[in-house]
């Protein structure tokens, strides 16, 4: 199972589901929705938080959150 936390810098994936006990509404409202493409823009120097781009929004989330965003497929780095 791949999650956003497994992405390398610049890699993309398609979100399959958000596997939280209680999904934070704010995360979805920022655009993090199943079916959308997510890109890992930058990792913080201590590998946490992660700076992502999804559905037109740029924002940072912690690793613990990223580990719960499950990817349907991982698209390899275009570069």
């Amino acid at each position: 199972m791949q999650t956003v936390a497994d992405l390398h810098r610049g890699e993309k994936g398609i979100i399959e589901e958000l596997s939280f006990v209680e999904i934070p509404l704010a995360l979805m409202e920022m655009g993090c929705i199943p079916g959308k493409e997510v890109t890992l823009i930058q990792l913080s120097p201590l590998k946490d938080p992660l700076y992502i781009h999804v559905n037109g929004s740029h924002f940072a989330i912690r690793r613990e959150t990223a580990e719960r965003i499950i990817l349907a497929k991982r698209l390899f780095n275009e570069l």
Partner: protein
Amino acid sequence: MNSKKSIKVALVGNPNTGKTSLFNQLTGLTQKVGNYPGITVDKKQGSCRLLDGSLATITDLPGTYSINPTSIDESIVLETLLDVESKEYPDLVIVVAEVENIKRNLLLFTQVKDLKIPAILVVNMADQMTRKGIFLDIEKLEEILQTKIELVSARKKEGIDALKKAILNYKEYDVNPLFKISEKIDQAYFDEIKASLSGFSLYKSWLLITQKNHVKFISEASKHIIDKFKVDQDKLKKYQHKETIYRYQYINDVLKKTYRIDRTKGKDLRSRLDKVLTHKIFGYVIFIAILLLMFQSVFDWASIPMDYIDAFFSYLSSWSKEVLPEGVLFNLISEGIIPGIGGIVIFIPQIAILFLFVAVLEETGYMSRVVFLMDKIMRRFGMSGKSVIPLISGTACAIPAIMATRNIGGWKDRLITILVTPFTTCSARLPVYAIIIALIIPEDRVFGIFSLQGMVLMSLYILGFASAIISAFILNKVLKVESKNFFIVEMPNYKLPSIKNIFFDVLEKTKAFVLGAGKIILAISIVLWFLASNGTSDFKNAEKIVAKKSVGKNISVEELESEIASFKLENSYIGVMGKMIEPAISPLGYDWKIGIALISSFAAREVFVGTLSTIYSVGSDDEGTIKQRMAAEVDPITGEKIFNFPAGMSLLVFYAFALQCMGTLAIVKRETKSWKWPMLQLVGMGALAYISALITFLILK
């Protein structure tokens, strides 16, 4: 004259969309900051003259990503837009969107539109569309969203007149909801809501049901019905998620028809700057360099206007002595009020520079990168990356800094941040530091560039940060507070700071601070002056007693007068109070005059300087500056200077740790809803201050 009442317009939008720029363009100097009743959220309002001469009252509501609030500030948006009866209820809502984040911005627009309030959409930063290869079919978008759309570049002042025209037509806009939540989610369930809460529109009922707390204006009967729907929380959550998914589906469909972006263009400032500013080495180096620049400038640049202000007030004081007629009023003004006000005006330059730095860091989008860089580190100390913003703004003033903790998600993170923020070196400590440093540290330069005084000041800042971090670490281990935590931080586009926005921001914060602190200081200087110019029977008979003592001694008239003056001060009420606490503070190296200043600066630290200047101007007719007067103070017995190196250092340490600020105590009480936490701060920081000052004095003596 225009007899029509003004149109009430509310600005709503995501953070970083330039909503504040637009507000500044529409209202200019008419803007005022007030408070919402009961809570300390800034309410920014201003008026705008429309093209037909009528007025619009513009309210800048707090920035939010959704109508569903995640903080107290954001809940203002919901309350304002739901309470139809309130006098704040807008005639028109302007939803501000930014061209690059239009998708997410439209989520909020669809929510507002569904509330059936006349709403128009402003697409800001339209001037960047061509450069970024963005095309937007406005006509079609207007048709689909059933609204008026204005393209605006708030910073370049483009599109403002058209927007004003659109405000004028507020009655003409469509108020039908865009989106029927019920159909796609669960028709039967929503029909039930509709039937039970017939007084409200369906979306409004839905919002009332899904909020954690009841909004204030709801009747008891409605609360009862709403509570019944609240029972099945899992269902509500599930339906909220579905709603969000459907809204985004709708928006994606809309944008497919109306929005195109040529991705080959504008590749792009963001990624290039991010690479450097969040780099694992350069990122931290740049951050530290910015902090260094900030502190150096506070001491170096600000000292020039400060010297002028200091000189001006001592001139004013002596001038008033010449022109005013003798009497009580004369003394009150020249020895009480003028030095008291001077004590606060003098650090306006430093405060303004600090606010300026914080404003620029926020405006450019850099602050979010700092949060990103610092989160993991701050978490080790029980805080969050978002705690960096309060800790940095705390260098200006702890009060707005503690209010800025509201967007920190978890309660424990937030509580710890609130508790340790007062350790950071706020600008009220600066005048105390500045004057003591000037007295005890020589004006040398190290390596020919850094001023030694600046470096001492810098170490005091570091001491402040270090004690904040260490106490956070301890609190994190000790505090047993449960809290759920969710961290999400938008990484906005980089922007050049707008001079207008920065100007208003700095002006507003400085004004609020100076007026707030000014009131306390003025009151205290008057009380102090009274206590210093009245006293025991010895005070009243000072002339006789001193004359008697000096019989037979050969002293000049001048010496006699200064003897009388200092005898008077010693026997005034304030002198008696200072003497009373002298045994407690003499181990720290302070005399009773400093004791007076300590007592009075319990209310606010900056009073220290004002108090000393009041005391010393009561004590002598010497017209030098306060600094000269302090430097000249000697111990009457040993003849040593009072403000010597050990005592000065001990005072610096004392002020670095002690929580001498009633404003901070009040705001911590308000934000934590209990006296427990401010009292803990007061006692804990006070004990730490006393012990550290004692140790400092003993070591250096």
